[in-house]
């Protein structure tokens, strides 16, 4: 962090105050609106309804699974991107970041037309193994992993670049093999970045909506996660939708508190 360059409050140009306050209001007022709309007396009932509990359980399960997938696949990818010198590494990095900037519903379509029954991979899976992915919990996990993976890769790769290769080179000159260097030197160095990457990908997975409803559908206990339940309830039972929204906000606040400061206050890319 750049504490030495912080300007004392008195020296912030006056012209910046109005838009700054407006920006803050834009973030906080909607949350305040949601809180005002919440039926706190019925909150326990609303949050423990059958549909809510199913959605909560499914959300926690799928977000946890996709976070594990993000770690298992994303860490090796981050190491390859940070350390290897093959010529197209910059292009590959850009591709990996695609889900970060892509509208999730577009991601859902991309998944549908690759892993759906008529997609080339989905067709192959169907013909060879009799597996169809859409409308299953697995589809939810895949959609969440798709959108959450870049957060982990960016976190870990940034840390790898920042720490440099000196420790690893020393370990190697002392006779450690690449696998030993990775487990004994690289991994411990990565832990803080990995932790914040994990929290961020979990949060992103938990909040996934567009790719899920497009690719996985919406069925209680199978594919209807918390955000999808909020959307479904918004049609009929607004109090319930608001209560679930509040729950998601609480989870988000916890995530921000846990993940501070490294990742939320600026992912080093």
């Amino acid at each position: 962090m750049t504490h030495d360059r912080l300007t004392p409050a008195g020296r912030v140009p006056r012209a910046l105050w109005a838009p700054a306050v407006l920006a803050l209001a834009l973030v906080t007022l909607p949350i305040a609106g949601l809180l005002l709309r919440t039926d706190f007396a019925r909150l326990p009932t609303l949050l423990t309804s059958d549909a809510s509990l199913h959605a909560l359980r499914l959300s926690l399960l799928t977000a946890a699974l996709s976070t594990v997938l993000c770690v298992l696949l994303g860490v090796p990818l981050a190491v390859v991107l940070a350390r290897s010198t093959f010529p197209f590494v910059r292009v590959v990095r850009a591709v990996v970041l695609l889900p970060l900037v892509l509208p999730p519903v577009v991601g859902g379509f991309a998944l549908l037309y690759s892993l759906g029954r008529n997609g080339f991979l989905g067709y192959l899976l169907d013909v060879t193994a009799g597996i169809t992915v859409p409308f299953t919990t697995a589809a939810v996990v895949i959609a969440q992993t798709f959108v959450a993976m870049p957060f982990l890769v960016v976190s870990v790769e940034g840390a790898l670049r920042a720490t440099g290769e000196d420790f690893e080179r020393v370990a190697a000159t002392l006779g450690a093999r690449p696998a030993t260097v990775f487990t004994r030197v690289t991994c411990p160095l990565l832990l803080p970045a990995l932790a914040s990457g994990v929290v961020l990908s979990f949060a992103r997975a938990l909040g996934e909506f567009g790719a899920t409803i497009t690719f996985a559908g919406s069925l209680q206990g199978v594919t209807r996660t918390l955000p999808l339940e909020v959307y479904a309830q918004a049609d009929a039972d607004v109090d319930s939708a608001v209560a679930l929204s509040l729950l998601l906000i609480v989870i988000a606040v916890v995530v921000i508190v846990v993940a501070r400061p490294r990742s939320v206050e600026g992912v080093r890319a």
Partner: protein
Amino acid sequence: MSKAIATSLAALLAMAGCTASEERTLTVFAAASLTDVFTTLEQRFEDEHPDVDVRVHFAGSSRLAQQLAEGASADVFASADEDVMRDVAGEGLLTGEPTPFATNTLTIAVEPGNPLGIRGLADLAREDVTAVVCQPQVPCGSAARELAAAHDVEPRFASEEPDVTAVLGKVRAGEADAGLVYVTDVRDEAVDEVAIDGAEDAVNTYPIATLTEAPLAAEFQRFVLGAGSGVLRDAGFGAP
């Protein structure tokens, strides 16, 4: 700098609809199943009234009702069933009596050629059939459940979609083998239809009502009930 801010603020306000010519804009909230018909009607109404801009907002009826209850402003509401319209009336939002203008029944949309040989509602319970339906909160979903109960069958659904267009989308994309949609939804070549024997056991009646005192709102309602009825019948809607 400040001039630039003023200009962009003005642009924002204009986008938000705060323009001087507001009285010649007519906002219509219409059920998702009315998308094709009301797009046509919008065009015709604008042809007859060159100074009017009709804006139609399509979504599941219940979602529209919810938006209205939360303060969304619209001049006319066309719902896919009477329960939803009653809710809106209960909120005290209507300025006129709801008038039925069409009816609709359910049918099964299947892939072209019906490769799985689906013959009726009972087949939607088959293990090898992936079927989708509207979620029970919207009219097409409640009608689907009503129909299944009336016929004493228990279809298995792989997904409950937010509205009827999403159900149709899943069948069109080939992800679902079958979807319960309205008879008016299967009039294109991308899907085939398997008619349901006794579909008239769950008939949706579509009411229309005005939400403002604007003369234009009443005029649009009259237009839908009058000249619009031909367009509705052509699209497969029944007479109320």
